[in-house]
Structure formats: C-alpha cells, structure tokens
C-alpha cells in the first residue's frame, strides 16, 4: 500500500488539530478516507454524503487529477502522490 500525503485545507484543519499535512496509507482514495477517519475522526462526514458519494462542497485531487472526473473513490493512490482536499469557495447575495 502506498503512503499518501494529504494536504489539509484550513477549512478542515480543526479535524487535525491544526496540522496542515498528514500521511495516510491506502491503495485507493476510499482506503485513504478510511485511514483519515481512523486517525482523525470526522473526515468521512466532511468528505462523503450519507450515500457514500463525494460531497458537492468538496473536491479531491490526486496530484493534478480531479477524482470526480475519474474513478471516484476507487481512484488509485500510489505511494508518493499528494492528495489535495479542496473545499468549495462559494457565497450568496440576498439581503
């Protein structure tokens, strides 16, 4: 299994007690999310919907590749890749 660097955005930093990068073991994105949840509870809920799909408010990139347009949670995570968790930046406009 590969060791994956996970870049944690400030929006999710409370889950890692402020740590900006963690290393997780996992052969696929699904494994890495399981590993994140084990080490830092709360990640699964932030990343996945109740149906187990990637939340619309989060995008995950394995190096340069957006997993939403690839193999999704089955995306391979070979050793040495960097996982970027990218929360949406969005806002409204009403009184």
């Amino acid at each position: 299994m590969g060791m994956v660097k996970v870049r944690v955005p400030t929006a999710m930093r409370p889950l890692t007690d402020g740590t900006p990068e963690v290393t997780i073991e996992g052969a696929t994105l699904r494994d890495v999310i399981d590993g994140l949840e084990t080490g830092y509870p709360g990640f699964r809920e932030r990343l996945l919907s109740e149906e187990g799909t990637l939340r619309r408010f989060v995008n995950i990139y394995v190096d340069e590749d957006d997993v939403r347009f690839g193999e999704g949670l089955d995306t391979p995570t070979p050793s040495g890749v960097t996982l970027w968790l990218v929360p949406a930046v969005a806002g409204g406009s009403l009184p």
Partner: protein
Amino acid sequence: MNSVALMDWWMLTDFLDETIHQYRTSLMTHNTEQHVPRSWGLLLGEFCDDGEAMRVREVSFGTNVRETDETVLAEFDEVIIPCFGKPYANGGRGFWCSNLDVLRITREAEAKGLEVLGSIHSHPDWHRIGPEHERELRISQVPTPMDEYLFRNTGWPLNIICYLESRDNEIFHTLGAWSPPSFTDNGNGSGVQPITIRFTLARRALKEKV
C-alpha cells in the same frame, strides 16, 4: 477559535473597486435582476501565533462557475433553491469559484507561505436597488440562512461580507466577518460566530506620509 481578522487597510482595494464597478453598472442598467452587482474574492493569509487572530495578506480572484458547473447547478436545483427560495434560481446571484482555481490559488498561496483563509463577497442594499417585488426585504447585516448553509458546508475559518448602501448620492460599505457554524450540528446548535476585523493604523499613517 480565531475571533479576530487583521489586515492592512488597502488590502481590499481591488475587491472594492470591482464592487463599486458592479454596483454602478447595475444602477445604470436599471435592471438589477439582469445585472446583479456581484463581487467576491479569496482571502489569503496566515494564522497568528496567539491562536486568536488571522492575518489577511492578499485577496485573490478566480472564475465563477455558478452557472456552468454541473455539480454546482445540481446543488442549486436540488437543495439551495428549494430550501432558500426562488430568487436563487437567478444565476447572477451568488458565486461559486472554479475548483481548479481554488487549487491553483491554494498552491500559489503556499509558495508564498500563505494559506486560503476564506472569502469575501458583497451584499447590495437590495431593498433600495432590487426588483420592485423584493423591495420589502430590508438589508440585514447578519448572515442569511443561505450564507450560514454555505459557511457550514465549506468550513472556511474566515467569511467576510461587504454590505453596500446607497445614501446621500454615494455608495457606502461596511464589513462583517464570521466563523462557520459547527459542521456536525446540522444547523441546530452553535451558529456562526462574529469575527472582529481590525485594520492597521500605523502603516496607514506611514503610507500617507510617503
């Protein structure tokens, strides 16, 4: 808990220039439904060692995909419009930054030793300049339910709203800032918490002397 945002007073110049441009364009077209005065940007900076404050260093701009991204359109159609009202069906309302741009800006920030802290966006005084049927709505300088929903789901530690008002033949603005509600309380527990914005004073004096 970061309860203070520090920044230089000129930090928001580009954002405010765009805000004024958008607002004036909207007034000139006399059709705020067609041209919604919308401006927004990403706030880059760092956490201060005291554990209480964030220092905003830059505002960066990205591409708005509110009306083009399939995932975003699905979110609006299936959740936001049913929950928060038909006005949000107007694609000119609200913004959603391209995820690729968020990633790019994140990496560019890191190269400079900065991080993405959150965002800023404008709220016009809709009850003065909006469509007739919406003028009973008073401007409210607290986050709307839609704001809270987005703050919660995105989770960024710093969310600034720039409130605009037309008065005395000029445009005025004020800023409000909030931390996001807890992600796990489903909106039933702690809501957004205000963040105090403080601008540098000494630097202002120095800059004006130069």
